[in-house]
């Protein structure tokens, strides 16, 4: 869908350039995140890094903004899955598919069920290899109905350059989530090399996948067709493989749901759990199954929020708006990560760091200013949306600030940290 969004404002070649530059940005950001992770290994990333770096109000506002982003993304992903499913089962109602997907995900996660690790790895590899292989095939087997390749387009260079900052931030959306690996180190030594390396490796892998696919789309479908649908992969696979291509698109979507969608739901649920443990949210949000370890309260809370988000996206077709606003939010959060690394070098110069970002200070500061600026620019990149993205982001920032304010009032009540004191 984001590739369709890029197609709406720029050509395939410039989209691929934006994806490449975005990957480069994310790799630089990951180096700062890796340094933070080496200082606070196994910590719940965003909450801890921002908490120790900034004042409570700012750090909580950013965390709530990130949570809102996760709710937006999950709403969009469930809608897109429904759109792809309707190609195979056109008689099914869109909202029914969305509710079915959410119910399935909530129930499975509440029960603490998860795919065995080996199956998770296999399904992810299958997903990546399928997209790359079918992407390369689409490039080789050009659709003769698509006149000329729009991949290399030398026209209107100045106009395309002006759009580049916005398209880069929109493309960052494609890579978000790489930072969640920081909680997974099984040994202290993992934070010296394995965790710092795993993020850029993941980003480079995704860069390859998205670049191939964005290029391949342009060899099979006219640009207008790509931008007219939020699920261009369906038309792509049908163009490439005939009517059965719809099943391939659906199969790939199912694989993606089992991996990224589910990971997003669990990540959001754990963030809600963390916020509850601090006293920032009502106690029922932090209910946990002692048997399975599933953050049941967080899953149900997030599930309810995602359901609302999905209903809004489906009813008003807000998928691209949500994605553009989500990209802008993430640009602020990533800038905060880089700034946190800078701040902690000053606040805690002697703290243990088993990894240090190789980026020079000036480059880190450049990122801190560039990322939000590009995020703001992306809000005005979709001509037909006018001020909607900017207004929506403003409302969401106010909401996040308000939630942070309420949390601080809640935490300000006498709530002893010591259990024994309470007894």
């Amino acid at each position: 869908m984001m590739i369709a969004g890029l197609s709406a404002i720029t050509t395939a070649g410039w989209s691929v350039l934006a994806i490449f530059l975005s990957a480069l940005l994310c790799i630089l950001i990951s180096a700062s995140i890796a340094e933070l992770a080496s200082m606070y290994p196994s910590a719940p990333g965003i909450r801890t890094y921002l908490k120790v770096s900034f004042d409570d109000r700012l750090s909580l506002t950013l965390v709530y903004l990130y949570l809102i982003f996760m709710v937006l993304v999950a709403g969009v992903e469930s809608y897109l899955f429904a759109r792809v499913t309707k190609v195979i089962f056109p008689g099914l109602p869109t909202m029914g598919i969305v509710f079915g997907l959410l119910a399935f995900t909530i129930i499975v996660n509440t029960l603490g069920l998860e795919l065995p690790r080996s199956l998770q790895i296999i399904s992810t590899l299958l997903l990546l290899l399928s997209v790359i292989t079918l992407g390369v095939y689409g490039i080789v087997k050009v659709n003769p109905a698509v006149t000329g390749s729009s991949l290399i387009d030398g026209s209107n260079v100045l106009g395309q350059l002006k759009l580049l900052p916005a398209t880069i931030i929109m493309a960052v959306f494609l890579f978000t989530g790489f930072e969640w690996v920081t909680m997974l180190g099984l040994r202290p030594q993992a934070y010296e090399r394995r965790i710092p390396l795993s993020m850029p490796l993941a980003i480079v892998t995704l860069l390859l996948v998205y670049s191939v696919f964005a290029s391949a789309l342009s060899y099979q479908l006219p640009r207008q067709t790509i931008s007219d649908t939020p699920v261009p992969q369906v038309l792509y696979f049908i163009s490439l493989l005939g009517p059965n291509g719809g099943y391939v698109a659906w199969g790939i979507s199912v694989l993606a749901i089992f991996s990224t969608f589910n990971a997003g739901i669990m990540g959001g649920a754990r963030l809600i759990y963390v916020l509850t443990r601090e006293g920032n949210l009502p106690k029922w949000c932090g209910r946990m199954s002692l048997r399975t370890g599933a953050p049941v309260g967080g899953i149900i809370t997030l599930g309810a929020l995602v359901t609302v988000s999905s209903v809004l996206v489906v009813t008003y077709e807000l998928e691209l708006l949500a994605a553009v606003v989500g990209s802008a939010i993430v640009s602020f959060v990533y800038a905060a990560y880089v700034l946190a690394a800078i701040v902690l070098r000053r606040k805690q110069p002697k703290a243990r760091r088993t990894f240090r970002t190789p980026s020079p200070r000036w480059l880190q500061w450049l990122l801190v200013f560039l990322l939000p600026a590009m995020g703001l620019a992306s809000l005005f990149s979709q001509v037909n949306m006018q001020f909607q993205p900017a207004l929506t982001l403003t409302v969401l920032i106010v909401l996040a600030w308000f939630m942070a304010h309420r949390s601080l009032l809640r935490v300000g009540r006498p709530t002893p940290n010591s259990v024994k004191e309470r007894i």
Partner: protein
Amino acid sequence: MNQGTLGDCLRSFQNEFNANERVKKLVKGWDRSIVVEATDSEPVFTMIVHDLIITDLQPGAHGNDDNDLIHLQASEETLIRIFSGDYNPANALIDGELSVFSSEKDKVKLEAVAIVIWGM
């Protein structure tokens, strides 16, 4: 803080752990070596959880099997506060005062043990 302080605290925790029937239900089939390492002083201990109880508390870091090893790192004062029930380990993790190197399920299990022993 001397080496005995953290050791005494962990011995006391061992007694509470082993005496609690609800904890036994929680750790059924959960055999682990839990390395407790103070980052600002020398004490390192390993608690061996086997057959529903902590069978041993050994000085030093022991245990090689990645799947059964849990490694906790914090300052000695923080570890004492945690194992005395004075500092919620989940909060310590969020505050960046404690590092827990283990699978996600084992982290949750540890917190569940703290909930059962000290109540929250």
